């Protein structure tokens, strides 16, 4: 037997084995044909059309479309913890609308550990605020004690008001009460009432 006999005899390999092993069937023989692949082309066209129709709705939806030039500005991260959500998450919904003569004017969460409730006086000015954290204030990921001191000092200087601070712990939470006091005003009664109300 000659090796060429063997090579030629392989021309008689069963068609099923040839098709099974054909390395060029997809690469060479099957050139893409619109006519042959009309179903695939149609499906792709429908998909494109659907995207074209629904994309503008998606962009305008409150949950969708960040990063587009035409989209509304993305809210700051803090907004995720704002107002009603902050109340629900922080337990501030348990706080009264009025507290120690002040009226709840704002509440928000500056970070995932901290909730802030702001109370105002009858003129709408901030009277005091209650800050609650689920970690001690020295570990807060938001405003540290030092930061708070700097902020209060700056605010006091600007408004000629003194901000008094009281810290306490209750039922696994850490509280801070900041009261704006002007002149010789005695804040002791207010502080006591606030703490009692929160407890």
């Amino acid at each position: 037997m000659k090796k060429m006999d063997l090579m030629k005899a392989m021309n008689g390999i069963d068609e099923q084995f040839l098709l099974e092993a054909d390395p060029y069937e997809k690469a060479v023989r099957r050139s893409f044909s619109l006519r042959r692949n009309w179903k695939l082309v149609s499906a792709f066209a429908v998909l494109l059309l659907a995207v074209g129709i629904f994309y503008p709705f998606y962009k305008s939806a409150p949950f969708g479309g960040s990063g587009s030039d035409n989209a509304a500005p993305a809210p700051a991260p803090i907004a995720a913890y704002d107002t009603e959500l902050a109340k629900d998450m922080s337990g501030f919904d348990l706080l009264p609308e009025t507290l120690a003569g002040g009226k709840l004017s704002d509440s928000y969460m500056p970070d995932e550990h901290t909730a802030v409730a702001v109370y105002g006086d009858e003129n709408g000015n901030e009277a005091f605020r209650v800050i609650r954290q689920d970690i001690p204030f020295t570990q807060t990921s938001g405003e540290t004690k030092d930061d708070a001191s700097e902020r209060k000092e700056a605010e006091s200087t600007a408004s000629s008001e003194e901000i008094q601070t009281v810290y306490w712990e209750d039922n696994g939470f850490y509280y801070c009460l900041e009261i704006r006091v002007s002149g010789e005003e005695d804040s002791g009664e207010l502080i006591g009432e606030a703490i009692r109300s929160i407890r």
Partner: protein
Amino acid sequence: MEDVEIVELYWQRNEEAIRESDRKYGKYCFKIAHNVLFDRSDSEECVSDTWIKAWGSMPPNRPERLGAYLGRITRNLALNMYEKLTAEKRGAGETAVALDELSEVIGRESDVEANVDLTLLKDSINAFLRRLDKETRIIFVRRYYYLATVKEIAAGMHLSDSKVKMTLLRTREKLRVWLQEEGYEI
């Protein structure tokens, strides 16, 4: 155009059959021829001859898989041309390497012209292929029918070159034993 429509054109003796064959299977047949001959113009000549052979064979033949049918004609023509070119010392490419590998199967070629019945040999090879697992069979057919390189086979099947080489080595040895059992003088 579907295969069955092209075959019908051959049967109607419509020359459009050749144009459609070339359009659909021209590159495919060229690749098969080029793997054997490793030369562009020789391969193109082979493909042209393929259409002539196809024209002469349909009718009476009515192949279901036109691609495999035409590919077989091309390979046969290419091997014949390879033999001719080798005699003229022009042969090159993967065929020489594959033939060297196959010489392991048949041992030293006899100086005496052995009268091998190619039809029986084809049957033996098919019986042998049926005994192989699918992966081994694909590797073997790609190498010795399509004359794909080891690298092409490895890349196409996501295997390492050494795995393909080792599989081919073992399969050649199995084929040698099989052909001996079938009564061939090796």
